[in-house]
């Protein structure tokens, strides 16, 4: 036990400096006015119901992130499932291919989407040459969702895949022995056992999607600004760190709340063998 504590010391120091201290700072800034005095103004400005400019942005961010997460789940779960069913060698190569794009810089990949999607871009040039109508998606919310799904899909697939490959084969055999066909086995055995992976997949895609600011700026064209863009703007351009921090605090509390709810949901399902759907 004692040894363990000494080993944990470097992490404790690291966490103190790079995780706890910045959060404390953000928290302090969020209660500071322009002159450094204590104020709640930053929060009242955000939660101004007679002029809900900022609340609308928050809502738009949650809405787009939720849609992106659902699409990731719908695409990611079957992919992870198919992947987990493949022979070992193929599986290794394919999961490597899923991670491969992540070796490239995130910004670069998003810029590449601009070249693909714009009116004179590769996809539309191709469509025009075939005599088909063009797809005017650049600088819309659709483009932001597409960017989110593309960038965060691996974060959905990998945790689900990890859970699925670890399911004990004998459990599946037991289900078959008891007369369950593949549909029943999936619904009553595989799906419930994979829920922890789904939960962590959801939080790993939703969180970056709700806080993103690069994707919305590049693919959304500025008019589809998200809460991340507003925060960036407060820190970088306007220099109102108090208001920027207040928005960050609101966002953190929101994410924390969402995680708590999902955690509880997971606990309830854990071991009880309860069936979803």
């Amino acid at each position: 036990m004692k040894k363990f504590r000494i080993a944990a010391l470097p992490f404790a120091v690291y966490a103190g400096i790079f995780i706890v201290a910045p959060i404390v700072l953000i928290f302090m800034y969020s209660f500071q006015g322009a002159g450094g005095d204590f104020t709640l103004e930053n929060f009242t400005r955000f939660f101004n119901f007679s002029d809900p400019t900022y609340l609308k942005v928050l809502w738009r961010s949650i809405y787009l992130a939720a849609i992106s997460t659902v699409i990731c789940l719908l695409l990611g779960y079957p992919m992870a499932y198919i992947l987990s069913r493949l022979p070992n060698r193929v599986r290794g190569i394919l999961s490597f291919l899923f991670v491969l794009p992540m070796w490239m810089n995130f910004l670069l990949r998003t810029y590449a989407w601009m070249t693909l999607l714009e009116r004179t871009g590769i996809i539309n040039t191709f469509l025009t040459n075939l005599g088909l109508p063009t797809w005017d998606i650049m600088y819309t919310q659709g483009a932001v969702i597409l960017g989110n799904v593309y960038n965060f899909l691996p974060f959905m697939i990998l945790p689900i895949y990890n859970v699925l490959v670890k399911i004990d084969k004998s459990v599946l055999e037991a289900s078959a022995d008891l007369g369950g066909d593949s549909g029943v086995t999936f619904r009553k055995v595989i799906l419930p056992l994979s829920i922890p992976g789904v939960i962590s997949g959801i939080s790993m895609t939703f969180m970056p999607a709700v806080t993103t600011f690069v994707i919305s700026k590049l693919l959304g064209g500025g008019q589809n600004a998200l809460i991340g863009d507003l925060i960036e703007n407060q820190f970088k351009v306007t220099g109102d760190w108090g208001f920027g921090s207040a928005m960050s605090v609101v966002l953190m509390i929101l994410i924390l709340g969402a995680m708590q709810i999902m955690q509880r949901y997971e606990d309830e399902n854990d071991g009880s063998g309860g069936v979803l759907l």
Partner: protein
Amino acid sequence: MKKIFALTLITAMLFSLAGCSSSEDVPTLTVYNWGDYIGDGVIEQFEEEFGCKVNYEMFDQNEDMYTKITKAGGEYDVVIPSEYMIERMINEGLLAELNHDNIPNMENLSQYVLDRDFDPGNKYSVPYMWGTVGIVYNKTMVNGEITSWNDLWDPQYEGQIFMMNSVRDSMAVALMTLGLNPNTREQADIEAAQAKLIEQKPLILAYTGDEVKDKMIAGEAAMAVIYSGDAANILMENEDLVYVLPEEGTNLWFDNMCILESSEQKELAEKFINFMCEKEICEINRDYICYNTPHQEVWDSLDEATLHTYPSADIIEKCFIYKDLGEMAKVYDEMWTKIMVN
């Protein structure tokens, strides 16, 4: 064993990379300039001639630069902001007075760009580039000619217009269209400009920064609000593009080199400024950046086509120069945020 060997090799490689950047006894000058705003090889030439090292960093907007310096402890020697920001920084004591004895090349600069209201006598700043803001349009995509800021509100160009993602420039376009003073500090005027820009939003394809150049070359939209130099640059790439200074007049701007009061390399910084005013360097910059040069001889040697992108005398009469907005800058920012998120 193999693994350990590989690991050692990688570590050694990383360290040798790190080794490249350490040069302790050479003085270092940190320059903070706009993105894509200096000719190729200019920095290297300065480093070689003066035996120093230059850290070159870039920003996209005056406001970015100001926030970085005042709030985020950015340490720079030479910065190149625009006139209204220089005025603000002088008022706040952020800039150092220049020793003109160390900048003899200032003599070669045009009288036109010197001694402007934002820095009388050029005590704090030396011109780097200057220009205007106008509309660039693709003549195959519009009906007739574009002549006025009002054309940016023409409903037939829905989804065909790029505006700038910059508070001052976009608000100024709206204020000029309304016939109001682009340096206004009146709340009512600012609100009117905000309403005007919100009205325009359905027509806008995107609010862009530097990437507008590539987009207009590719023909993504019919027109864009653009800085004169960027326009000159892209006119060479796509012959369907036309640059026009709207009849209502436009913004005339100056980007000047300044030295921060906090700089510990003031003398080297002055040498840098002097170097940038040399004829040869101004020529390289003119050819690369395409903005208007402050150097008289370089200006005189321009060809007809380039000279066309310089504002004519009657346009200049209708031009205005930005002034520092003081406390109202915040109101502009807030209005702009609301336009963007509405």
